[in-house]
């Protein structure tokens, strides 16, 4: 068994509406080893969810389509599997949990039914055994009185409890990979921390690799081994957390870091946002996708698209001026590009 679990190569996903084609994901590559965690960060609309959803081949089609690339998972090329083979992977070898626990559980079935269904779909067990397993899972994710709770409906649970149920469903078949698409964004801060703790604990127990999609870089630093920074469907920076935490290289990553709320930011110190907005993905982008908003952009940035280049150990960035030989100096935040975020 090789250590490499997932290798995504040049993944491209397009959405068609009328004559316009949206290139939502435009050549994303990364690898993930067993039991490893990767964080995917980037602004809204940068293609994080689309990337994650294509790993399960669940892009709604039409209008969407995986138009290029390869996804190697545990020795299989997922894009070459039949739909039937894909079904035996979903929920079994790769599971997914979503942002909003209030809407991602089916309101008209009991939580027990929803866990049991997952187990029975992938394992040849009796209804009774499946129920026993479901209770065990609920206990494991920290639902009190699971024997009783199993017969309750989602609306009888709080948001945090529902996300725990989602995690129980996702892990019920011992997946090798768990994709979590902003699993804590919709929750209270204290509950967020509990859910992250739970995920960390269960990861050790289940030996699952995790793809964690988030807006919160703090989560990445804490939970992940690697980071993928996405912008407008492209990967702009990719590497180990250690590298990127210590020396982020891409101007877009700098912008993201500056716009995070951290403990070092005092209350009256204004937060920075990256001025402007991401490009229209329906238009052909020549040059660097970030050029229009980049404080370091030069003429070449508007005409030539920068390639991913090694900038450190296991650390890559797509910027003309960030290579092994070349260095950009990160500017101090200036009053000019500081926009005040009202809180």
């Amino acid at each position: 068994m090789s250590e490499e679990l997932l290798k995504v190569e040049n993944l491209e996903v397009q959405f068609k509406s009328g004559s316009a084609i949206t290139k939502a994901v435009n050549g994303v590559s990364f690898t993930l080893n067993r039991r490893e965690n990767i964080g995917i960060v980037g602004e809204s609309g940068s293609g994080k969810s689309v990337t994650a959803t294509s790993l399960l081949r669940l892009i709604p089609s039409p209008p969407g389509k995986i138009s290029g690339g390869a996804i190697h998972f545990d020795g299989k090329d997922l894009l070459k599997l039949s739909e039937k083979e894909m079904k035996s992977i979903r929920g079994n070898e790769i599971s997914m949990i979503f942002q909003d626990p209030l809407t991602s559980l089916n309101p008209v079935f009991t939580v027990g039914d929803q866990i049991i269904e997952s187990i029975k779909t992938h394992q040849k067990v009796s209804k009774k055994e499946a129920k026993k397993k479901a209770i065990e899972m609920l206990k494991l994710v920290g639902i009190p009185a699971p024997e009783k709770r199993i017969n309750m409906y989602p609306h009888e649970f709080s948001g945090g409890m529902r996300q725990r149920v989602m995690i129980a469903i996702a892990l019920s078949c011992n997946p090798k990979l768990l994709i979590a698409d902003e699993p804590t964004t919709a929750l209270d801060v204290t509950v967020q921390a509990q859910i992250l703790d739970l995920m960390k604990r269960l990861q050790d127990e289940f030996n699952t690799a995790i793809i964690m999609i988030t807006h919160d870089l703090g989560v990445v630093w804490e939970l992940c081994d690697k980071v993928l920074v996405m912008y407008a469907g492209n990967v702009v920076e990719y590497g180990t957390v250690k590298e990127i935490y210590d020396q982020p290289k891409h101007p877009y990553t700098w912008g993201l870091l500056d716009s995070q709320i951290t403990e070092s930011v005092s209350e009256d110190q204004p937060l920075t946002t990256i001025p402007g907005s991401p490009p229209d993905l329906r238009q052909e982008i020549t040059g660097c996708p970030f050029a229009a908003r980049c404080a370091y952009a030069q003429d070449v940035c508007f005409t030539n698209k920068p390639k991913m280049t090694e900038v450190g150990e296991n650390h890559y960035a797509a910027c003309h001026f960030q290579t092994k030989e070349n260095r950009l100096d990160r500017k101090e935040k200036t009053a000019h590009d500081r926009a005040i975020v009202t809180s």
Partner: protein
Amino acid sequence: MGKYIVGRILNMIPTLLIVAIIVFLITRLLPGNPAAVMLGPQASAADIKALTEELGLNQPLYIQFVDYIGNLLQGDLGNSLTYNKPVIDLILERFPNTVILAVCALIISIVIGVPAGIIAARKQNSIFDYLFTTFSLIGVSMPIFWLGIMLVLFFSVNLGWFPATGMGSMEAGAGDFFSHLILPSIALATIPTAQFARITRSSMLEVISQDYVKTARSKGLSEFIVICKHAFKNALTPLLTVLGLQVSSMLGGAVLTETIFSWPGIGLLIIDAIGKRDFVVVQNMVIFIALIYVVVNLVVDILYKVVNPRIKYSSNKGGS
């Protein structure tokens, strides 16, 4: 649940009482003596007087009312003079025929309408969806009288496949029974089929893009289970509403269909009784039909709660 149902049944009594009072007042307070109306313009004064007394119409209004409600509460619906039978016997004779026709039409409309709506929602904006939209629009706006006559002309008169009118009997064989049933069932099923299809399509469309449908797919379930179990159960509430209305109106006598095909159900009975000016029958039929609506409504309210666990039970005024 049991408590809820008992509460709802008790709630039905005032509703029915109000209907009974309104019906009573309409027949008594309208100008003209019902007895005279029943007997027609040629009747002699002596005949009218005799009938007036027989019907108790010479009594003071409050006595009439107390008698009427008293009888009603005992289940005595009075006698029909024109049919020479207790009204209750008339209903027991005719209602099963209406039920047979309604059940048959319902089966047709559910079996065709619901799957068609689900497929149209799944394949939104496909050719199937466009054809579906066209046909379902024609269906809901179909003039049933015209459709019934066309069915008779084509299938009975031209092709001779099915009898044009009347109801078959099981004694004459299942073939006779069903061949009489087919055309009226199709006529009666047309509008509900289109309605069920449209409501199924629109509520499925709403549900199909929900997160829990995405969750169901991500669990590795088959598309059939995702759509027909996870999505459809959530789309059921609006369908139940329309279903309830259709069931009530079918059971309350499909007047047009029963008339065109001379189907001996309660719809035809009412038309007949109106023609004969038998106000005893008409009055009680109105109350009977009100009872049907109230009962179906109750059943639908209970079903709402079965399909949607978020609706709480409470015995005052059922949700709708």
